[in-house]
């Protein structure tokens, strides 16, 4: 799953896949703004068949948070 997430994040944010490590913070390390995050969430939802409501989005800051969230909800 990490590989797929790396691919989607790297593509969505225009960063190198090697930068998409579990500790990477979307806003601080990967340069995402709030519109980028919505874009990313939509593509992750589609790929993994989960729904991530905005309230939960507020608790997601790093790539690792996303992995944990998807594992818990799929």
């Amino acid at each position, binding site marked *: 799953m990490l590989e797929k997430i790396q691919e989607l994040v790297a593509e969505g944010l225009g960063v190198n896949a090697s930068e998409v490590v579990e500790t990477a913070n979307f*806003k601080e390390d990967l340069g995402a*703004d*709030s*519109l980028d995050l*919505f874009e990313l*969430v939509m593509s992750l939802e589609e790929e993994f068949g989960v729904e991530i409501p*905005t*309230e939960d989005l507020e608790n997601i800051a790093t790539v690792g948070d996303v992995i944990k969230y998807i594992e818990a909800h799929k």
Partner: protein
Amino acid sequence: MQTEITKLLGIEYPIVQGGMAWVAEYHLAAAVSEAGGLGLIGSGGAPAEWVREQVREAKKLTDKPFGVNVMLMNPESDKIAQVLAEEGVKVVTTGAGSPEKYIKMWKDAGMKVIPVVASVALAKRMERCGADAVVAEGCEAGGHIGENTTMVLVPQIVDAVNIPVIAAGGIADGRGVAAAFMLGAQAVQLGTHFVVSNECVVHDNYKKAIIKARDIDSRVTGRTIGHPVRALRNQMTNEYIKQENAGATVEELELLTLGGLRKAVVEGDVTTGSVMAGQIAGMVKEEMSCQELIQKLMREASELLGGKRFE
């Protein structure tokens, strides 16, 4: 004059007045609704009880539908969302985020929910969450903005969703209205020109600054910290951009804008306050009543569209 939006909202003309913080209070909202458009009260950063009072005052001035814009970064958003449902507000628009957690409560209260969006992904997400329409706002607009222009954003959102789209950003005359319709919009939202209307209570200096503005006079501050805001160029924007380029911290930059909009709107300090306005300020040359403005927009647009949409 009917479009999907006029039918959805029960209004006469497909013209919405933007829910601008500090600027869009009940006098303006009621005047726009009385003139056949949709007036909005802007909650901005105001407390929930202020919003309740505004809604009650607007109801004394008009029986026609009006709405409230909720700025979702307002710490009292939860309370404001509740107040709108309690007070029977007909329409709510939202800015600065996603209103997902309130949509069910609002729909249960019979309200129409219209989020302002600046990207296709957010528009699709809002449709999925049950929004009745979206406002697609391009970065020509004043205040908090996104990245895409109206010309680029509107047709892509129109293609991506099945709910009606209201175009905003860069519209101040009938040519802009007609162009928005050509891009597939079912209504338009104007902010800047409604600031320069008789019924708008902003300080006269604010109106004069807009009337005086040329095409190149707006600036965007805060892009580097992820909060781009468009305002007319003055000492505040110059200082902000200087410090921003020098790598000032978010906290330092926020000090510069703290209370800036209030300072400009209420005190008329257009030198060190924040005179938020759209790029189209350069085309706003004359103050008129909301009714005159709406009639003018509709007359001009209808001539251009050859009476096809506007009988």
